[in-house]
């Protein structure tokens, strides 16, 4: 460890203050560990991920951190008061088609809801690409008699012999996990519960995923899909989390490990095993925790985060301090009807490929070079140029060791790829080609952010752009300028934002009930009763998780819509203080206006669901201010960096990020090199270090580079 990386990496300079929190994020390339000690100091560690056996990476990064911190593993884990893990185990099972053999119980007449889907394809014009394979073949979708009507009344009883027949088929076919989705069960789950009981008696150890428990929402396709996805990933999730918990306990962890769920909140291992689909967005959702810390440290409550990794960019929006929660999401072509942080992902990252079509049009992405071969400059056989190659060619990255020494960058290979695939066919210089590739990717990122802000009715100029991931801070200033945003914020931990976010999240449980009613005075008592019951359920769950009632918060909301609408909006209510009908109408109208640009002042409003979110507060350690310094920052070196055709190559000061302190202000052109990311500051822009050691770039207005 070099001298200049103090105080962020060198432990001897700032001894850890116990107890500390640890977040471990398993990503596609790296497994990151963020340690947040009781004084608020943050330490980041990385090792290469081990996709075939992700638990090895988790243990590996713990051992690596212990070594670096000169602690025994048992000491590192023993003084850990909160250990949080984000895992891609469920996501990968789905993406790679390596989940369980699932059987599905359906209502007679509706055996094919799962396979009919809803006719939606990503690109209407591409009619040749098939759907993602159906997760349960038709012969394992077993119909049973029995019908609940639209009012939730039973009109035909459940036919137990049909369930018995299904059980025989499941046994005969070696089914490993079961989903149950019966028609109208969101109104009355009696048949599903009865079927579940019959299955449980005959198959006592198998994973059962009942749609009315997993996602009690209206719509037979969405509910079956969610229950089936849950069943599909359940066995792998259970084995992985149980074994990892046991392993961590052996290594000295005294606290139960907690898991990040789709919403960014935390859950116990047991809860996740019961609701395995809540693990599907485990990694990226953790950014919510980190954004809240950025908001606290920067004093800004409107943030757009842009995390640019190897092949994709995740955009998330924090508005008035809150991340929007979606009621459902799609992953790998499968619908999951569970709450999740709203994340907009596009195919643009360091490994994104560029080229030109046969008619001479330059393109960038969405295809990526993948981990293998990766960018041409990695020297692993890649011949197509990537964004990373363009950054290297223009001097924004330096040849040689990269990403904490994980790779070595070969400038000649980049140049060769860009020349052959872009510059020669388009008859332009390699520099213009590389700069063009970056302009295109910046445009893509800008447009992705504009889509998110337009869809939610916001003006992007009112937001601060938070850049993270290895490739984000290189592109952020150009993107901010195109958006008209005035500031770019790069957290000191930009290279491991998810891992840090994990250690900053709260425990969160969400409970929802479909409840269809016209919103009026007569409807209120029942709504209140339902909300109170859900809140009680939340408090019980958190008590089981070990929370004292004083650190438990519950937030209730109603899902509302105008009659005839299909979509709905969540509006917060406080059932304990009584619900004021008029302000509820007003709140809904305001939310509708914000999102859709209009509201109906005279229209009736319908309730379609009631929800309670119960959170167990894990009181956060303070943010540690970093000691400021009066001296000017000293660059570690200079090199020529190409910014744009206007500036050409400019001699640019290169700073080591670890050496920069609060109070220091540097005018662009500047490059700041961090362990796993690089910040590019354009001529005219100004970089400063805030009280917490994070980087803030003021964007020169008007200048269009």
């Amino acid at each position, binding site marked *: 460890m070099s001298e200049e990386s103090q105080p962020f990496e060198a432990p001897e300079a700032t001894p850890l203050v116990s107890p500390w929190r640890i977040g471990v994020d398993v990503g596609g390339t790296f497994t990151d560990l963020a340690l947040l000690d009781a004084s608020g100091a943050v330490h980041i560690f990385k090792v290469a991920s081990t996709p075939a056996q992700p638990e090895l990476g988790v243990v590996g990064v713990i051992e690596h951190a212990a070594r670096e911190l000169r602690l025994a593993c048992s000491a590192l884990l023993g003084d850990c008061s909160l250990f949080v893990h984000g895992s891609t185990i469920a996501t990968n099972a789905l993406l790679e088609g390596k989940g369980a053999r699932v059987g599905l119980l359906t209502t007679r*007449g509706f055996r*094919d809801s799962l396979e009919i889907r809803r006719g939606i394809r990503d690109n209407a014009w591409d009619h040749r690409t098939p759907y993602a394979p159906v997760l349960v073949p038709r012969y394992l979708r077993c119909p049973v008699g029995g019908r609940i009507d639209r009012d939730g009344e039973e009109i035909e009883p459940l036919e137990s012999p049909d369930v018995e027949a299904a059980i025989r088929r499941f046994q005969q076919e070696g089914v490993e996990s079961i989903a149950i989705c019966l028609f109208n069960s969101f109104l009355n789950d009696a048949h599903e519960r009865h079927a579940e009981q019959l299955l449980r008696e005959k198959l006592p150890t198998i994973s059962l995923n009942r749609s009315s428990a997993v996602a009690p929402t209206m719509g*037979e396709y969405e509910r079956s899909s969610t229950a089936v996805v849950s069943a599909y990933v359940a066995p792998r999730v259970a084995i992985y989390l149980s074994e990892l918990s046991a392993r961590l306990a052996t290594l000295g962890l005294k606290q139960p490990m907690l898991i990040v769920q789709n919403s960014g909140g935390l859950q116990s291992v047991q809860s996740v095993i019961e609701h395995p689909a809540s693990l599907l967005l485990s990694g990226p959702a953790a950014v919510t925790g980190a954004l809240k810390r950025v908001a606290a440290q920067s004093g800004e409550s409107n943030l757009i985060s842009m995390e640019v990794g190897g092949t994709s960019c995740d955009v998330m929006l924090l508005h008035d301090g809150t991340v929007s929660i979606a009621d459902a999401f799609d992953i790998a072509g499968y619908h999951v009807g569970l709450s999740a942080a709203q994340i907009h992902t596009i195919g643009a990252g360091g490994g994104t490929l560029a080229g030109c079509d*046969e008619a*001479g049009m330059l393109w960038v992405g969405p295809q990526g070079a993948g981990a293998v071969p990766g960018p041409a400059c990695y020297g692993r056989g890649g011949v197509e140029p990537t964004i990373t190659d363009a950054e290297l060619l223009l001097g924004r990255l330096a040849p040689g060791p990269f990403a904490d020494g994980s790779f070595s960058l070969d400038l000649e290979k980049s140049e060769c790829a860009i020349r052959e695939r872009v510059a020669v066919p388009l008859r332009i210089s390699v520099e213009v080609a590389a700069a063009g590739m970056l302009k295109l990717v910046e445009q893509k990122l800008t447009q992705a952010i504009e889509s998110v802000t337009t869809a939610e009715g916001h003006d992007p100029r009112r937001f601060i752009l938070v850049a993270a991931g290895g490739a984000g801070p290189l592109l952020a200033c150009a993107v901010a300028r195109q958006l008209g945003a005035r500031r770019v914020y790069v957290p000191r931990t930009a290279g491991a934002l998810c891992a840090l976010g994990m250690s900053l999240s709260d425990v969160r449980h969400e409970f929802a009930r479909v409840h269809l009613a016209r919103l009026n005075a007569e409807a209120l008592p029942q709504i209140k009763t339902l909300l109170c019951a859900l809140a009680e359920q939340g408090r019980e769950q958190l008590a089981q998780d070990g929370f004292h009632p004083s650190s438990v918060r519950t937030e209730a909301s109603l899902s509302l819509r105008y009659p005839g609408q299909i979509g709905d909006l969540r509006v917060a209510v406080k059932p304990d203080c009584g619900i004021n009908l008029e302000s509820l109408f007003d709140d809904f109208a305001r939310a509708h206006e914000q999102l859709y640009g209009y509201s109906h002042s005279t229209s009736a409003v319908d309730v379609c669901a009631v929800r309670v979110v119960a959170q167990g507060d894990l009181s956060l350690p303070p943010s540690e201010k970093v000691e400021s310094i009066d001296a000017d920052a000293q660059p570690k070196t200079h090199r020529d960096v190409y910014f744009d055709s206007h500036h050409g190559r400019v001699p640019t000061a290169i700073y080591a990020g670890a050496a920069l302190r609060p109070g220091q202000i540097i005018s662009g052109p500047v490059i700041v090199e961090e362990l796993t990311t690089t910040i590019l500051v354009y001529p005219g822009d100004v970089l400063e270090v805030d009280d917490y050691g994070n980087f803030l770039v003021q964007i020169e207005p008007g200048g269009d580079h």
Partner: protein
Amino acid sequence: MQLDPVTLALVQNRLDHISVQMGQSMTRTAHSPIFNQSHDFSCFITDHQGRLISQADGIPIHTGGGDLVVQALLDAFTQNIDADDVFLSSDPYVAGGNHLPDWVISRPVFVAGRLMAFVCNRAHQSDIGGGVAGTYNPSATEIFHEGIRLPPLKLIERGRRRKDLWALLLLNSRCPELLDGDLQAMLGSTLTGARAITKQVDGLGSDVYHEYVDGILDHAERRMRMALSSLPDGVYRAEEKSDNDCFEQRDVYYRVTVTKRGDSLTVDFTGTDPQIKGFKNSSFSNTRSAVYVAVTSFLESDIPRNAGTYRAIEVIAPLGCTLNPRPPAPVTMCTVLPSHEIIHACWMALAQADPQRACAGWGKICHWNMAGPNPDGSTYVMYHWGALPAAGAVRGRDGFDQIGPLNSLGNLVVPNCETYEQLYPVHFITHELRCDSAGAGEFRGGTGVEYCARVEAAADYAFRGEGQRTPSGYGILGGTMGRAGRVDVRLENGEKFEAPQFGNGALDALTLRIDSPAGGGWGNPFERDPAKVLRDVRDELVSRTTARDVYGVVLSEDGREVCEAETLALRRV
């Protein structure tokens, strides 16, 4: 002028983003479910001469007709177009429209006093008057029965809305509140587009901007011509038919001659039957769009779709034939039918040129629409989309078992039965795939569905049973035809009848059963992977008999394995 390839790509991507952003704005602000849920609108941009330069947003059948709308208004208002004017038009005979319900808002964009572009939004209105509620009148025999006709009109003159005209429009709709809100949403979305175009032009300068627009069109033309060059030269003929003219059962023929020479294509419908009595005639604008859908979907899905793309394709349809009728022939159904037949005919002709890319036929629609009173006295309109048909196969993919109509390449949402039970007086009994219905092939067609619903109250119906009598999903390259649809009705009093294909009627409570038409197969069924046949048999989508007789696959007694030796023997014959 030498164009910079980087700027060219940036301008192209930005234009597409602007049309998508216009669409997002429309979705956010429109009032009618047809827009905010079904996205039955398309935003597009033309240059100052009305040449289509971007249509990234919207539905396939709207593609490529937008230029005619702008060209018609340019003809009508040559010297009289000002900044802050906004135009409205719809008529297929005088305003370049496709059919009357699709109203187009066109907003000119002036930068520094110079006309640079038109930003437009074409959107299917909820009601425009005419013979029945909801714009589709199966009994129409003249365009006058189909709603109000709009020539190019100035809806906003130098920034001021023409109140008299606005009132006239609202007065001619059964849903004036929806129309009012939706028109405003359309205006708003074009304003978003106009601002973005202005910013784009400012960044480049107007002369340079025009150069890059030319560059974008030229690039698209090169892409299309390169794709066409990959097909062998030749004259390819095909014919498709409908079994009715909306009033009686009789065959109506759609004949096409596709001539491919070098890097150009001529699509000539000479020989097609004369215009028909019912509303399935196609305006020329729609005929051209349907041809573009057929050709681009046959070739490559990522070819840009703008005026440059279409320079390489000439479309001929003699005046007076059903694909270019004389007024006052009714045309409202054309975006669905005969778009389906046009695409089929072109696909069949192109298949002769490139069998590997051949597309088997899709089932034609046969679902009903119904309307009736809600408990609060308002009117509901329900489409029985749960009975949508299946798609045909292509190499590498079996047909989608249930999908939206071919004109939108299936881009329509299939509703959940549970949701519809909450919204309408229906109780669902069955919504499942059909057995032994799919056209056989190395890749089989989609199965279609068995759809059964009890409608619990009297309602008004519009029948649209194009696919219910004659099989429509043709097979290709040895693949077989998918089975026809069927529509049966049983009234509460026990009376049963097969539904008429087209028309209107009021019926009491009833049980409606629709078997939706299946898709055609691609290639020789004997070439189908036996493992897939086994899976279909296990899934009860193909019977053991069909597996043996049609696919030449013999299964073990327990039906769990393929008998390889016997299968091989059978397939060798």
